[in-house]
């Protein structure tokens, strides 16, 4: 029986603030799972800590709400042990780019086949609006005592230099586009990163829904002035087609340059995709040829309560 969108929803009460950008992301994720027809018990949503961390409770698949900053570590371990599962990790920008930045870089180097979505809103919402890693230097959101004294992290840029092989940005109020990006990210063979701009209506009074819509730019005119635009509507080609260093470097540089665009024009869509980099499973298969058919979670380790591992060769080599 085909799964419907509602099959991916739990009846857990959602306590996000009215108008929160997070709703769009969880909807897009549920739509993407439904569109791909992934069985509920063949997917696990891992989440970090903060408002976004509650996401896993709203989705009716396996859900693992982990620790602040550590979501990628749990997700990678599970995917390595059971590679048949679809794994999506989610978390806030403070979670992934502040306390968890080391794991972000570490994960990039491994290129395990899974998806990481950052709910990017510039503030630590659940602790009442402190500046988070993506808030720009000098900006003062409403609960900051004084303007932000730190420069911001560039999430797309960090993903580029860390080795992520699918890098995209979505906008939480463009749910259909975001759903398409999630589908692409999940289908990508390797580690995917999705930076989702997600206005926090309670604490971020700078990057608001109206601001992204360009209401301030519109003035008297009736034209659309949305700051958000889609890379696929331009002649931007994010995909690496040949395992050729020159092409790879060009595409990486182009993604990095594009990631610096901010202000009146903010790009969304796919910045970079390279399926020619070996996913981690391939690197394991080089050492353990039957890894995918016989991953850790599928191995039989005992027979009638006794171990079936035979270490007699090793023990014999230790004989005196």
């Amino acid at each position: 029986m085909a799964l419907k969108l509602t099959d991916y929803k739990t009846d857990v009460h959602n306590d996000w603030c009215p108008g929160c950008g997070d709703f769009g992301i969880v909807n897009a994720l549920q739509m993407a799972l439904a569109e791909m027809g992934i069985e509920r018990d063949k997917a696990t949503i891992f989440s970090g800590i903060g408002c976004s961390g509650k996401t896993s409770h709203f989705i009716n698949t396996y859900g693992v709400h982990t620790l602040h900053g550590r979501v990628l570590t749990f997700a990678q371990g599970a995917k390595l042990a059971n590679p048949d599962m679809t794994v999506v990790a989610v978390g806030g920008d403070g979670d992934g780019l502040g306390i968890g930045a080391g794991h972000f870089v570490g994960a990039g180097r491994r290129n395990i086949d899974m998806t990481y979505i950052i709910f990017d809103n510039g503030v630590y919402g659940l602790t009442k609006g402190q500046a988070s890693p993506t808030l720009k230097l000098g900006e003062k959101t409403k609960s900051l005592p004084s303007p932000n004294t730190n420069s911001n992290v560039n999430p797309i840029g960090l993903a580029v230099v860390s080795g992520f092989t699918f890098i995209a940005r979505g906008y939480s109020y463009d749910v259909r586009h975001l759903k398409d990006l999630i589908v692409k990210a999940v289908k990508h063979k390797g580690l995917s990163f999705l930076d989702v701009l997600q206005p926090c209506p309670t604490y971020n009074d700078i990057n608001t829904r109206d601001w992204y819509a360009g209401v301030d730019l519109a003035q008297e005119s009736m034209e659309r002035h949305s700051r958000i635009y889609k890379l696929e509507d331009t002649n931007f080609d994010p995909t690496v087609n040949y395992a050729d260093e020159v092409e790879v470097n060009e595409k990486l540089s182009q993604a990095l340059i594009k990631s610096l665009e901010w202000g009146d024009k903010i790009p969304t869509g796919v910045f970079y995709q390279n399926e020619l980099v070996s996913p981690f499973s391939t690197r394991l298969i080089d050492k353990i040829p039957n890894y995918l058919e016989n991953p850790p979670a599928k191995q039989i380790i005992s027979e009638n309560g006794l171990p079936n591992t035979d270490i007699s060769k090793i023990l014999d080599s230790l004989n005196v």
Partner: protein
Amino acid sequence: MNTDFTWLIGGPQGSGVESAANIFSKVCAQMGYQIFGKREFYSNIKGEHSYFTVRVSDQNIHSNVNDVNLMVSFDAETIFRHFDEISSNGGIIYDSELENTDTGRVGTLDEPFKERLHKLLESKNKPFTIAGVLEVAKEKGVKLYPVSFKSLLQTLSEEVDNPRLRGLVRMYNILGVSLSLGLIKMPSNSLVDSIDDTFSKKPQVAEINKQAASFSYNYASSTFENFDHVLTGVPKQPNTILVQGHFGTSLGKMVSGCRFQSYYPITPASDESVYLESNEILEIENDRPGSIIVIQTEDEISAIGMMIGAALTGTRSSTSTSGPGFALMTEALGWAGINEVAVVITLYQRSGPSTGLPTRHGQDDLLFTVFAGCGDFPKIVYASGDIEESFYDTGNCFNYADEYQIPVIHMMDKFLSSSVVTCKKFNPKKISINRGKLLDKVEGEYKRFAFTDDGISPRSKLGMDNGVFWNTGDESDEYGHITEDPQIRIKMMDKRMSRLDLALKTIPVSDQAISFGIHDYTIISWGSTKGPILDAQTMLKKEGIDIGFIQIKLLHPFPTEYVKSLVKDAKVLIDIEANHSGQLGKIFKQNITRDIDYYILKYTGRGMTSTEIYDSLKKIVENKSSKREILSHGA
């Protein structure tokens, strides 16, 4: 006369001290002797002083002793640091080219040591040179066997017509071990075999080394005279293996079905992970495929996170670390606790705090481990006393994790990890595998944290048909969804904590603590002090002094009732531990509400010898001891 012989080889780190000691150990083991070897080294790659002591006996031994019977050295530092450890009927084989070297020439001798040495030499009116310290040794009765390592190689290179041998300094270690074996008249055929084993991947190197070995062996046996110790071999004990420290837990993990290990490099724990990765393809009965995935992570937080993620898929999963790494893991440890995840953390302790003495021994982390993590959650802390035990204990730890759905910390230490010992061949069939309430399939509605009579819920695994569940580090309801309901909170806390009682009720008492006899004077201890305590107990018994000993293996939950029943007939309690504050003593007092009468403690970072424990126990029995006996033997 029984054989009880201790050999010491030292040299700069990177000069092959360890391979020489491995060859010596192998040769002696093959000649039927029991071995207890131990490596000491600095936190350094090349140049600092490292040494290896190998005790050889025809009896069962479990420790080192203070006296060294034969020292071989090809550098000056070894002689400066160890000359006073040589017993009066012992010997020193040394490089005669070094005689005039003074302490100022050895840059790696630190000032505090030099000061102590100079004071000693001054008092005996000797120069601050190798010749000076050797005279001190000689006056004590130690026999000196000078040999020029340079000339030895020179003569050899002429004899076998191989000019490459001349000046090949990195062969000094082979010369040292071969001279030693020649001096004690150990039959030489096993020396050649053992070199073949050691260099099995480099036949050319093996050939040169064999030539050098035979030549120096013959040189020693024909030139050196009047040595009191002759070891010509004893009947082999059947079923004996020669193992290094981490083999117990490494092989234990393979056999127990651990199929995922994540780790971040740290001394002395990473040897285990590297060994597991080197053996990642496993042999499984009936030609089944088998493998263990070993992942080096970006830090210890990632190591524990990945391990937990893997464990949630139903895979037996583990990580291996030392104190500083474990400190980083404690937040996630609590997550494993509240989410009832079955994981095993192998904790190879070293000397802290912070980086402490990073390559030295310590049992400093007992209290920290028992109390690790914020919040109240159940865990099991289990400690092994020797390498052989650690193999079977690894099996127990995985079973505890699965049966009680609880994180288990298996405590090991540096003393164990850098030992090389003979022991009974491990028997994998003595390990059982019990996965507790891990499900094969789920039918109907499923609640991961369902309330049950025994406090343990049937466990699904990520990716299993119909087994969808949720986890959270927040308090949760039976499904695993967040709750802050006060009544559910009580039930959930009670459910989780109840498994501590369950563990105490269901783990056989013989696995909780081991009694090696109870007498008026009885020792309580835990972990690797077991070996030297057993040997000291035997030494005292020979003098008609009976000392009891209880080795406590289950440190948390503490087996209060069982230990209470054991100590009730003991009049004087002695706590022996390698830490400053007598940490087991504190736990003991808290649970048994009885005072410890004496402490024997060591926190120099060097392992205890049976001699030291014997001396301290004797003082206690003779009523000449202070409440805290602090041990300090070892360079």
